[in-house]
């Protein structure tokens, strides 16, 4: 078994891979199909291609140009957000949008049109991409921007790596006063309180997100901690500090460690500790601890054991409050919900991406330990509710959604198909396109 797999450890399918070092590489002629592969933080099978070959982009990590006046950075697609931050933060720039891990490649973040805690203000990453070059299997190189070849630009943003290989991209950065974020934390009890906090914060603060207890019912149902944040002028001395993971999970945990009781205990502990320590207070956090708390624990995915886990992330319109309540009840009753569910209200800034996941509404992300059939059945039921509410499920986290569900979640599916590179495919795509 080589190291090519996805983040949630399911499925353990053998991948054949090549790892080019220079952008002038040639696509393998003999492979049945091809798929770009980045730093493997996609949870499911959207980054896998068991029938053919994956093209590992991680040695394509050269910076090309950094305009420090305008904050425009051009680099090869395998450059990680971690490397980009190490370069730009000391020069007072930041990523315009970042997901909850910095161990992702620029190419991967474009292919998934990632979003972050500032979606309500800045939209998804696709809005901040100025240019990229798409390398197609017929030998063509297509320069894409909102104005040049816009149809390929729009298909590739959120296009799950299927429209060709992104060679390099140019991104517009955000000017910051320091590496620190001013954070306000507020405890809430119930979804109504969350909606109220979210509405207030989203008009005032660049960042907002909530941690939700998905294990406790009764009086503690839907309790959580709401955090809002803004870049702050604070302690300029420490701004270049790069923090490596302090601890790492060296092996897969035995599965019995993660169960209904430990999860409930953990959630209670986390809620009460943070309520006591930070709720109602303003703190200054280094960007690493604000945006990437889990990056501090290397290989955290191993706590779910060798069986792996499922992650489920969906968005439904903000008006569907009763559906959200219903879904949460189902998760709490099942006892399968896990640590650190994340709740976030998306804004209404549209993405250029045809298959982009973020859209106006409330978004919830959480893990389910893999208990086989019962876990799959629960997620299938959640899918039904999300479909009925007119929502969508995030392909980057998925390994099981049906083609029917996918095509309903992503109504541009038919248009998108015409831009797929004929030699490109993925395990995910063969499933949701019914091939």
């Amino acid at each position: 078994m080589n190291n090519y797999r996805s983040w949630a450890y399911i499925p353990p399918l053998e991948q054949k891979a090549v790892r080019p070092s220079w952008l002038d590489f040639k696509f393998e002629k003999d492979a049945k199909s091809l798929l770009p592969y980045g730093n493997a933080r996609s949870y499911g099978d959207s980054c896998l291609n068991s029938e053919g070959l994956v093209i590992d982009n991680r040695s394509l990590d050269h910076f090309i140009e950094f305009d420090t006046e305008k904050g425009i950075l051009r680099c090869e697609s395998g450059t990680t957000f971690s490397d980009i931050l190490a370069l730009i933060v000391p020069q007072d720039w930041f990523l315009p949008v970042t997901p909850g891990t910095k161990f992702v490649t620029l190419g991967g973040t474009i292919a998934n049109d990632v979003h972050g805690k500032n979606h309500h203000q800045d939209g998804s990453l696709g809005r901040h991409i100025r240019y990229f070059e798409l390398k197609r299997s017929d030998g063509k190189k297509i320069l894409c921007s909102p104005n040049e070849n816009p149809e390929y630009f729009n298909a590739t943003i959120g296009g799950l790596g299927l429209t060709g290989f992104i060679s390099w991209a140019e991104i517009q950065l955000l000017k910051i006063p320091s590496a620190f974020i001013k954070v306000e934390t507020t405890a809430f009890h119930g979804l109504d309180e969350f909606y109220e906090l979210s509405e207030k914060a989203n008009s005032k603060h660049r960042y907002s997100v909530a941690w939700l207890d998905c294990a406790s019912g009764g009086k503690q149902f839907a309790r959580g901690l709401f955090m809002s944040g803004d870049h702050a002028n604070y302690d300029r001395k420490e701004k270049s500090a790069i923090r490596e993971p302090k601890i790492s999970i060296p092996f897969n945990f035995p599965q019995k460690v993660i169960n209904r009781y430990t999860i409930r205990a953990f959630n209670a502990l986390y809620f009460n500790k943070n309520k006591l320590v930070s709720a109602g207070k303003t703190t200054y956090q280094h960007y690493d601890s604000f945006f990437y708390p889990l990056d501090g624990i290397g290989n955290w995915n191993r706590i779910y054991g060798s069986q792996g886990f499922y992650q489920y992330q969906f968005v439904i319109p903000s008006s569907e409050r009763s559906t959200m309540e219903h879904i949460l009840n189902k998760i709490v009753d099942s006892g399968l919900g896990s640590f650190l569910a994340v709740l976030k209200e998306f804004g209404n800034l549209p993405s250029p991406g045809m298959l982009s996941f973020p859209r106006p509404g409330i978004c919830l992300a959480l893990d389910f330990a893999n208990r086989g059939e019962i876990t799959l059945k629960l997620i299938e039921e959640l899918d039904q509710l999300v479909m009925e509410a007119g929502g969508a499920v995030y392909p980057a986290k998925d390994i099981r959604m049906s083609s029917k569900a996918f095509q309903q979640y992503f109504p541009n599916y038919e248009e998108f198909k015409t831009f797929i590179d004929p030699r490109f495919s993925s395990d995910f795509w063969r499933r949701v396109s019914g091939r």
Partner: protein
Amino acid sequence: MEDKPKNETIVIFGATSAVAQKLAQLHAQAGDTLILVARNKDRLNTVASDLLTRGSPQVDCLTSDFDIIQDHPSLLKIIEEKSSNISKYYFFYGILPDQKECEASWEVTHKALMTNLLSVMSLLTNIANRIEKETNRGLIVVSSVAGDRGRQSNYIYGTSKGALTIFLQGLRNRLHKSNCTVTTIKPGFIDTPMTQDFKKGALWATPEKVAQDIYKAACKGKNEVYSPSFWMVIMLVIKNIPETIFKRLNL
């Protein structure tokens, strides 16, 4: 790095290799001026833009085929014209020939010895004669653990690196009185394009890790350094197996 002087000018032969690029990035971040030498112009330009972005004030690129030994004096002359105050010369280039092909063809064997050993010796001889009258110069050369003992699976590569290691010992001894250092780097298995087709295990190191070890060793002017350091223990064991036993092993 505390012992490192500021704003150095350094030369890297074989600058497009995976480990060389990571090493060059460390020098770029320290604000050093770089002179890069390699065969492929486009690849050199890719590396140069990267290093300029990372903080190097100036990067010069020179293309050369190191196997053409008669070109070495003119190459070194061009380098000298770029800067009169070069503090470190790094040697990263080399090839990993297929042992079976070496056994079947003297041409392949000769080519490996030419690239990995003779051309490096030629450049080092030229440079040593120039820096002998100066002080505080560093020569840092990547050899290999494979040069510590010959074994059937790669003894031509091993020969080229083993002979290189011995050449460097002599050169170190000679240049000691000039206060110039010669650092031999002996990496183990590194996960690079050169080793793309090998099965990787726990002994494999990343180019970043090896580059950091080389950077530290160069700044301190060390003599011989294994990277990662656990290879010192492994090679101590390997070197001490009696030949009567060793020749029976399937290594």
